[in-house]
């Protein structure tokens, strides 16, 4: 896989089918439905303690806006990922071009997907720092690889957008 900035695009080329599939999974991985731990992490309370009024207002007014915000980001990413669904041979390497104006949406969706996967698997800090673990050991190892792969893309986007 190669990743580079080309004018107003971030180009990820030489994407093998495995990595292309991991990218395709970003919108699905970002979903919290049916995973209370992930739901709790993504929509964490704004205050610790028993401020029931603030919590209730947050649930009523802020949470729906946050849901819309995150949904918009994953939709943008999903639309960009359509490029990977071409008519090429299924085992051929692919190229994905992300418009730089979608960088914020990608950062958000990648972050959300990483947080949801980590919450679902209850990864420890030690595991999250183990970047050399093979993805083929177990489903858990694959999920950890996914978190690190998405993190690598996030880092690249951050660096290229000069934030």
């Amino acid at each position, binding site marked *: 896989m190669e990743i580079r900035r080309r004018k107003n695009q971030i180009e990820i080329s030489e994407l093998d089918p495995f990595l292309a599939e991991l990218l395709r999974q970003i919108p699905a991985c970002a979903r919290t439905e049916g995973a209370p731990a992930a739901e709790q992490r993504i929509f964490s309370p704004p205050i*610790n303690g028993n401020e029931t009024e603030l919590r209730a207002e947050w649930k009523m007014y802020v949470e729906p806006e*946050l849901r819309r*915000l995150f949904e918009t980001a994953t939709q943008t990413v999903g639309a960009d990922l359509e490029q990977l669904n071409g008519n090429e041979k299924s085992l051929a390497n692919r190229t994905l071009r992300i418009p730089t104006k979608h960088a914020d949406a990608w950062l958000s969706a990648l972050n959300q997907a990483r*947080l949801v996967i980590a919450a679902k698997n209850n990864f420890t*800090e030690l595991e999250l720092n183990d970047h050399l673990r093979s993805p083929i050991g177990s489903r858990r190892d694959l999920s950890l690889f996914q978190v690190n792969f998405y993190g690598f893309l996030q880092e690249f986007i951050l660096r290229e957008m000069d*934030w």
Partner: protein
Amino acid sequence: MFRLEPFHKFELAAAYVSIFFMSAEPLTAQVVTRLISEIVHPKGGAPSAIGAPTIEEETRAKEAFDVPWQVVVHNDPVNLMSYVTMVFQRVFGYPRDRAERHMLEVHHKGRSILWSGMREPAELYVQQLHGYLLLATIEKIS
């Protein structure tokens, strides 16, 4: 509560300004009360059907707004350090070195106080931080 309503606030401010400019007297609480009373019950005019203004009690205790609050960001092993730094720069307008100092404080000490002040802006900052998926809370300064 969490939705800014600047237009309403602007209207309120404009009302004070026009009362001030219509009046040659200094704008004291007594003057404002009398001016409002004259608007509601004009001299020589027909009795107003509007009635005297009533002040609704705030639903929240007054001290909740008077006490300073702080915006706290908590450690999360998943969020990237560079991402957290970028969020602090964007949300608070901090220069990179200050944003990095806060990020490192979160990383090493588990939390960092990013801002302190009145409750409403504190809540808005927390809302923005949650929009970037950071673990953030507001706390009363004890």
